[in-house]
């Protein structure tokens, strides 16, 4: 029975670890300037954790194999672990402690690099409105100014997702509102996240970025995309029945394509 246990645990540990190691399922390619640091942090954690995982499971398997008895009859004297609990305490504290120090030290720099730095001065500012169950994006238009948002004017029925007041507010008249996030490549982007109704989240796996929308708060989020293409933005915070289908496309365009797109949209206003 002990040998069977050992074999099963060993097989489970090795197969599980191998699938991780072979990247059978893995992160999509990174398209952001900051993502490589997150990936490196994740890879390093994976290696350390992987070693600990395999070592712990194999130690368990080996001891069970070695010290199991078929029936209660065997009268082999028991042995205490050499040195008692002290080596265990030292091992755990030192190994895990060092890991914690390293991970915290490196990891908090990565985190700070994404969330605790101000956006680049020339960042393109885009407002994001999250609602049940779609994202809408607003560009300032030709005047470079965003019109004010008025909750009492917000209406899906009138396609007024941001609650703009073009009748009285001239800065709102040229605001461009679209359902896809279109951004130029290699340009710092600053999003201002608004939520209209409940909590939502902004998650683009390829961009290695995620942030909750919280009603009543405007949360800034900045990043730079490096590869043109079409990606999916999904909601990761439970927001109601349509949560699974709350998405938008992120289109990263070359500078020229983006300018052309913006011009067309502005003309349509």
């Amino acid at each position: 029975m002990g040998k069977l246990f050992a074999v099963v645990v060993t097989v489970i540990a090795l197969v599980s670890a191998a699938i991780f190691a072979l990247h059978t399922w893995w992160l999509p390619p990174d398209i952001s300037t900051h993502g490589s640091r997150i990936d490196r942090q994740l890879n390093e954690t994976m290696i350390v954790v992987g070693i600990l995982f395999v070592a712990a499971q194999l130690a368990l398997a080996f001891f069970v194999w070695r010290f199991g008895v078929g029936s209660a009859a065997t009268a082999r004297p028991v042995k205490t672990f050499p040195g008692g609990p002290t080596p265990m305490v030292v091992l755990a504290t030192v190994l895990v402690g060092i890991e914690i120090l390293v991970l915290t030290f490196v990891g908090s720099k990565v985190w700070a690099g994404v969330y605790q730095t101000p956006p680049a001065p020339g960042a393109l500012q885009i407002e994001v409105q999250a609602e049940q169950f779609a994202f809408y994006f607003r560009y300032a238009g030709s005047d470079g100014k965003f019109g004010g948002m008025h909750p009492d004017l917000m209406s899906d029925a009138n396609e007024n997702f941001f609650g703009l007041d073009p009748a009285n507010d001239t800065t709102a008249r040229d605001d461009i509102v679209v359902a896809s996030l279109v951004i130029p490549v290699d340009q710092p982007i600053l999003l201002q996240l608004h939520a209209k109704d409940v909590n939502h989240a902004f998650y683009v796996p390829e961009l290695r970025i995620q942030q909750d929308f919280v009603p009543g708060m405007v949360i800034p989020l900045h990043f730079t995309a490096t590869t043109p293409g079409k990606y999916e933005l999904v909601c990761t915070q439970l927001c109601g029945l349509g949560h699974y289908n709350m998405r938008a496309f992120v289109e990263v365009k070359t500078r020229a394509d983006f300018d052309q797109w913006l011009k067309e949209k502005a003309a349509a206003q």
Partner: protein
Amino acid sequence: MIVRFTALIAVVATATIAAPRHQPAAGMISGKVTYTGTLPKVRTIDMSKEPNCVTQHPTPVTTQDAVTGPGNSVRYVVVYISAGDQGAPAATDTVHYDQKGCLYIPHVAAMQVHQPLEIFNDDPHSHNIHPLARVNAEWNKSQPKGAPPIRTSWDQPEFIPVKCNVHPWMHGYFVVLATPHSAVTDSTGEFSLTGLPPGKYTVTAWHERFGTQSQEVTIGGSETKTANFVLTARPY
């Protein structure tokens, strides 16, 4: 689809049986609804969130809250008898409301209280139907692909906005009326109310953005009276 077809047959059959109504004289009111003023900007609906629906529309779809036609005609105006109704038999045919290509078809559905209403999902994905009722009981249900049609009816007269939260641009109206005499204007802004016994009627036209207008019409016998409406449009 089979269920729907059967339902259609049933409706037709019911209508046929009910047709030879014992009515000595029945008049008709018809007319056209137009607008004056500045229309709100027609916006293209951005359906990019749901690629299924984008591909269903070869040309981009525009907003349906102010659809106009040739000669300043206005579509989706509900014209109905708001006073003078003489207790006509209740409408029993089923009103169909479809969700197709991430639009409500028709955009505005008029029906009588207690008239059967059937809601279908013809799209290959889920919708939720959320009638924002205030007087009637509000409800909000998803209809995934493959789910049976939703059969329901309304108890009180009310103009009920309908929305789909999964596709926020989807917007329509259930106009629930006390009278069986109602019509929704077509793409040329025209309507006709039929089967009206002689009497004095108040005819009301309602549009979701351009408001309400009424006029009195008297039907003497088997005649057709004209009632035209001119609504005022505002840009915002």
